[in-house]
Each structure stands twice: as C-alpha cells, then as structure tokens.
C-alpha cells in the first residue's frame, strides 16, 4: 500500500488542545505564580467538575451529530426536585438517586422526540430547555429551596474531600474513566461513532439508531442531573436559575477538545482537555483580576481560534 499524508493533522488533533492547555498554564503561572499553588489547582478541579460532567454527556450527543441545549435546565429541575424531596424528609441518598433518575428520564424524552419524532435536536432541546426551566420556576415558585438538612453524606458530595481531593473532582475522574471505556471500548461506543459518521448506512447495517440515540440523550440527562446534585450540595440549596447557559460552556469544551459538530469524529479525552482549558481561563483570569466582561470576550475568542486551527489542518 501507498503512504498517505495524514501524519500532521493526526498529531494536531491528538495533542493540539493539550498543547494549548499547557501553554495556558505556563502563561498564567508566569503572570501570577500563585496559580500553581496546590490549593488553587484543587479549587480549579472542583470548579471544572460540573462543566466536565455535562460536557462528557454532550460529547456523546455531538458525536452522533446532535446537540443538547436543555442540559442546564435539566440540571436545575433535577436539583430542585432533589432539594424538594429532601426538605420533605426523604433520605438524602435516595433523593439524589431519584433526582438522577428523573434527569435521565428528561434526557430520554429529548431522545424520543429527536429519534421517533424525527425533529432536529437543536429545535427539540431548545423547546425542552424552556419547558424544563419553566417547570423549575413553577416548582420552586421562583425562589431558592433551602433548609435541606445537614446529612453529612450529602454535604460531602459538593464540599468534601477524598484522599485530599475535592469529591466533585473525584466524581469527575471516575465518570471520565467509565464513559471513556463506554465510548472507546464497547460496541455502544462504536455505534455512537457510526451514527454520526453515516446515519443512513448505520440503519442499513442494522444498528438500532433510534434506540442508541434515546440512550445517549438519556446519558446526557443523567450527567446533567449528577452535576445538579453536586451543585445543590455545594450551595446547600437549589436555585431556580441554576445551570443557566451551562450548555454553552459544555458545547465549547467539546468543540475545544476537537470533536466535530457534524459528528463522527472526536474523543472524550479531548473534551476533558477542553473543560480544563475553559476552567483554567476562568480561574486564571480571576486571579489576574481581569474584569468579568473582558473574560467573556477572551473566552469567545479562544473558541474561535481553536476552531480555526482545527480547520486549517484539513
């Protein structure tokens, strides 16, 4: 066989985002050495964990060529429901599990509308984003739910440490390994790529495309609800406006990580790096005292540059 000139693009795709992350670390450390202090790094990991969990689920969806705008609202609604159950005296662990299950169901609803309803994922999740947010406001009456008790287990989830690491970061790492395995080592993962790469051919090949999609949107809902549980614990309350615009940070992380919005191409590790880039930017700019208005400008510009670099290679 003849050689193909694929080397360069492959290397950029694998290591480009990672390189950018390392560069970012160096620049910020030079500007403010306290960035590298262990405390700040642990803080950074805790801050990124919520976006990471959502972005992991989002990666699966984007790999199939879809999108999910409703994750922030799912986070808020499941958080409110968890808090509500706890206030009414349900065991916190049970409340969290039920809340996560409800989040999964919300995702499954998205999946059914997309696959069986044959509607565009953008439209479906735009609508459910509004609906789930609306239900959150109805349920909370627009006010935060507080007084959710002082179960130590529950407090741990958002604020505790395990072996010196923040529990949310531990959850993030565990979730990463489980989902990485699912995506790259199982037939389910293979089907995810197949659908994004060529949906028509996937159908002809006997892949139950609809079923896989429902499962993937369900997964994204689950991840959003887990993030919701962590947030609820961290704030010790459920906020009706929680999770607003989180979908954007998640999509940005996925794209920064090199996953193609048209599906079929990308890796979960890339998303992890993307999440860390966004987290580092936030954390670093705060340390450097950049105004939050400028922060937004910088974040947007970084996304554009990343996508542009990704383009250049092909």
């Amino acid at each position, binding site marked *: *066989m003849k050689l193909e000139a694929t080397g360069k693009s492959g290397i950029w795709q694998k290591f480009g985002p990672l390189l950018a992350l390392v560069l970012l670390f160096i620049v910020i450390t030079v500007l403010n050495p306290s960035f590298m202090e262990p405390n700040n790094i642990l803080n950074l990991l805790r801050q990124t964990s919520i976006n990471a969990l959502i972005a992991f689920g989002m990666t699966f969806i984007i790999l199939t060529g879809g999108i999910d705008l409703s994750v922030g609202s799912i986070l808020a609604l499941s958080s409110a429901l968890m808090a509500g159950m706890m206030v009414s005296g349900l065991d916190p662990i049970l409340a969290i599990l039920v809340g996560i299950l409800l989040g999964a169901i919300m995702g499954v609803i998205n999946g059914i509308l997309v696959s069986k309803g044959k509607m565009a994922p953008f439209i479906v999740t735009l609508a459910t984003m509004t609906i789930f947010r609306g239900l959150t406001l109805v349920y909370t009456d627009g006010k935060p739910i507080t007084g959710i008790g002082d179960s130590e287990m529950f407090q741990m989830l958002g604020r505790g440490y395990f072996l010196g690491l923040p529990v949310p970061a531990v959850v993030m790492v565990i979730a990463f390994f489980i989902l990485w395995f699912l995506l790259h080592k*199982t037939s389910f993962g293979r089907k995810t*790529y197949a659908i994004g790469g060529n949906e*028509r051919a*996937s159908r*002809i090949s006997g*892949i139950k495309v609809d079923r896989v999609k429902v499962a993937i949107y369900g997964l994204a809902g689950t991840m959003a609800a887990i993030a919701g549980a962590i947030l609820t614990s961290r704030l010790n309350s459920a906020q009706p406006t929680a999770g607003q615009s989180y979908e954007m940070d998640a999509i940005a992380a996925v794209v920064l990580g090199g996953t193609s919005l048209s599906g079929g191409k990308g890796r979960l590790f890339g998303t992890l790096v993307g999440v860390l880039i966004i987290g580092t930017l936030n954390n670093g700019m705060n340390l450097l005292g950049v105004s939050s208005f400028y922060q937004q400008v910088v974040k947007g510009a970084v996304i554009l540059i990343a996508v542009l670099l990704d383009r250049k290679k092909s």
Partner: protein
Amino acid sequence: MQIEMHNIYKAFGQNKVLEGVHFSLEAGEIHALMGENGAGKSTLMNILTGLHKQDQGTIKINSTETSFKDSKEAEESGMAFIRQELNIWPEMTVLENLFIGREMSNPFGVLKNKQMKACAKEIFKTLNISLPFDKEAGLCSVGEQQMIEIAKALMTDAEVIIMDEPTAALTDREIEKLFEVMKGLTNKGVSLVYISHRMEEIFAICDRITVMRDGKTVDTKRIADTNFDEVVQKMVGRELEDRFPHREANPGDIVLDVKGLTKKGLFEDIHFAVRQGEIVGVAGLMGAGRTEIMRALFGVDQIDSGEITIEGKKVSIRKPTDAVRHGLAFITENRKEEGLILDFSVRENIGLPNLKSFAPSGIVKTEDEINFAEMMIKRLHVKTSSAETIIGNLSGGNQQKVVIAKWIGTSPKVLIMDEPTRGIDVGAKREIYELMNELTERGIAVIMVSSELPEIMGMSDRILVVHEGEIAGELLKQEATQEKIMALATGGN
C-alpha cells in the same frame, strides 16, 4: 437456502417500480440479475432483504412464506447484501468498518478487538487484500472500499449473498480473485445473486440468468441455453447496434502538456501530452495511481513538483477552481460524494456547472435549463419520472448518467473522465461513447481513465498505461492489444 419471489409489486408514491416480478434462487447457484439502469434490480433485492416492503406478492424461503421486519432480521437469517452504493464510514478505520453493526463483544458490550483483528486477517487473506486495518476508510480508494464491503459480507457466514455490482470499481486481478472465492462458496452450498452490467462476467461465472425490463421479469434461463445477443436484446427490448460507435480522430494542436508531475509515494515523473479532439485512454491496475494523477492535475491534491502547460502557457493549478479557470473539467470516479447534490432535482444537478450559460445575468433562465436537462435525459435514457425528480431517488446507474450529463454541457478544453461508464447499462454506454465523439469533434480533448479494457481499446486514440505510479508505456490505437496493455500494467510479465 432456496428462495422464491412471486408476483412482486412495488411503487414509490406514483412511481411504479416493480410490476409482477418472479425470481427464484436455488442453493449453491450463482444467479445473474440483469436489466437496464432503473429496471428495478436493486429494489427487488432491497425487498428480499427487508429494507423495503413489497406492496403485493409473496416471498418463500425454503417453502415457508417469510417477510423480514428489517435488514437486521434478514442478516440474522443468513443473508448478506453487498449494496451498489458503498456504505462506508469515512472517519472510521478499515477494521471498524468491517464490524459495524456486528461488533464482537462480551455480554457487557466490551469489544474484543483481538478477535476481530484475527477474523479480519483471515478474510483479507482469502481475498488477497493488503490494507492496513487502522487506515481511515475515507482515505481508501473506491476499489479498496468495495473490497471492504465484500470482505464484510463474506465474514457473516451467510447462506445467501447478494452482490449488487461488486466489480464496478475493481480491476481484473481483484475480480479474478473474487470469482475464485465465489466458486468456492457455491461448493459449500451458498447461493449468490450477481447483479452486473458486465456481460463477460455474467457468462464467465453464472449458472442462471434472470433479465428484468421496466419492473417486470422478461425471462429466466440457464446460461448454457442463451447468449450475449439474446440477453442484450431482452434487456433493451430491441436490437442493439455495435458496442462502440465508429470513431474518426482528427487530433489538432497540443492542448495539455504535463511534464515531470510528481507526488511522493503516489506517482513519479509523469509525462504526457493531449491534443485537441483526441481521446487518450489511461489504463492500469487498481491502485496504480491513475486517479491520483488526475486528482493532482485537477488541483484536488497538491503536487510536489512538475509542470503543467495548457495551450502553450505554463499554468499553476493549486485548487480545483484554478483547473476550471484554465479549462479543465473532471468527472470523478466517486460520483455519489463528489458529483451530485442528492437533495437537488435532476434538472438542478445538470444545470449547476452550466449556470454561467443558462444565467449570464445571474437570473436563472429555467427555460434553457429545462430544455437542456430534458435533452440530456432523453439522450442518455435517464430513467426518471421527470426532470424535477430528486436525484437521490434515482437508481444507481441513472445517477451516474446525470453526472456525465452535467459536465458534458460545459465546454472545457480538456475533459477528464474517471471510469465514465461504471455501472451504466449497455445501451447508455454507447450513448456516452457517442457524446465523447461529439465532444472531440468540437475540439475538446478527452482523458479517459478506465479499467474496462474493451472500452479503452474501443474508444481511445492513444493509450497510456500506468504501473505503480509511473507511465509504463504508450500505445497507439492500432498497435494496442489486451495482452500488451496487461503486460505493461503488471510491470512487464
């Protein structure tokens, strides 16, 4: 497995595609299914394998009436279908492509990569394929992609294998190997349905033949009891003239001159010239680099070095738009992806490269466009309910005709055609040859890359033979024989 399809009817909306088809398949036979483009061959097989449902009629498998819910169910009961349009996942690797939809995994869904590799290795050995497993399938040539599809079907241990134009993208060597494997399968009792427009193949390998015309079965016969002419006559419903039209070449000045074209690892030091009104055939084995040379010439890929001169002026072609500006046109071998906009109508597709002449002021003069499209539809016998039909709904061969029609309307100085008649029925092939004659009479130069030797010899004024990325030799029409071409193409032995 024994199959009996009885009185099958199928319509897509108003379009009646099958009207009372009978078809039977015995265990261990190779059954040819022939018919013009759009006769309904692929549709019939799609019905058999559960992708479409017939409106009327019955399917019996081993004498019990059967109807598959979907293609998965057909596959599970022992049927494999190598489809006419390749089902390739371009971003996934060769190995991943081989196992999509039937990955080997443990009960928890964890993939068994080692086992899949071993299994693939075995099948690649039987088929004599040497493709790296981790190559992205999108980077494979059409021929290689076809081999992936064949390997995929053979891996399933199916009792019935349907092959819809499997050899269209293959060259003689691969075809020979494939035939060997097919014979071996029939000895094990596997039945094969073989759809092809290549008459020689049908007579070389099949046991029985069923001819379809306009959605009906015309006849089923043993191969031994029929002949070439009878089959063609049944297919088209009339006598056909010679396969190749008479050709009188009047070459003019040199229009395209290529010197020292090199792309490392693909081709080296390519020299050739083409004159106005000349047809230059380019022969060679699959993977010899013919398509790569043409792609580079057209600016799809970058060359490392070399010089291109058009009408005496040195030009630099870095992207396809440069090529078009300098008067080149390119009909690619990969038509489905590179040649058509599947959601556009037949008319819109044909009109696309000709918008300048139909719409000089920017306003599309649809009158002209319609007339031109209808003329082309008629000449090439494109089977479509109207010029407004969405092209994705046409049969494979008819889509190819539209691509040809599309480019023939432009007036390039040099027209490059890569496998111009692949998958096209005998009647329409001749029309395309006649169009090529007309183009050269207008002074257009044609470069025709083809793997069909009869076509190369029947139509070219001059033949270039490519071997492993180099031009192994040049033959004039008068001196060319099948043996000479093959000798050059295989490196002289």
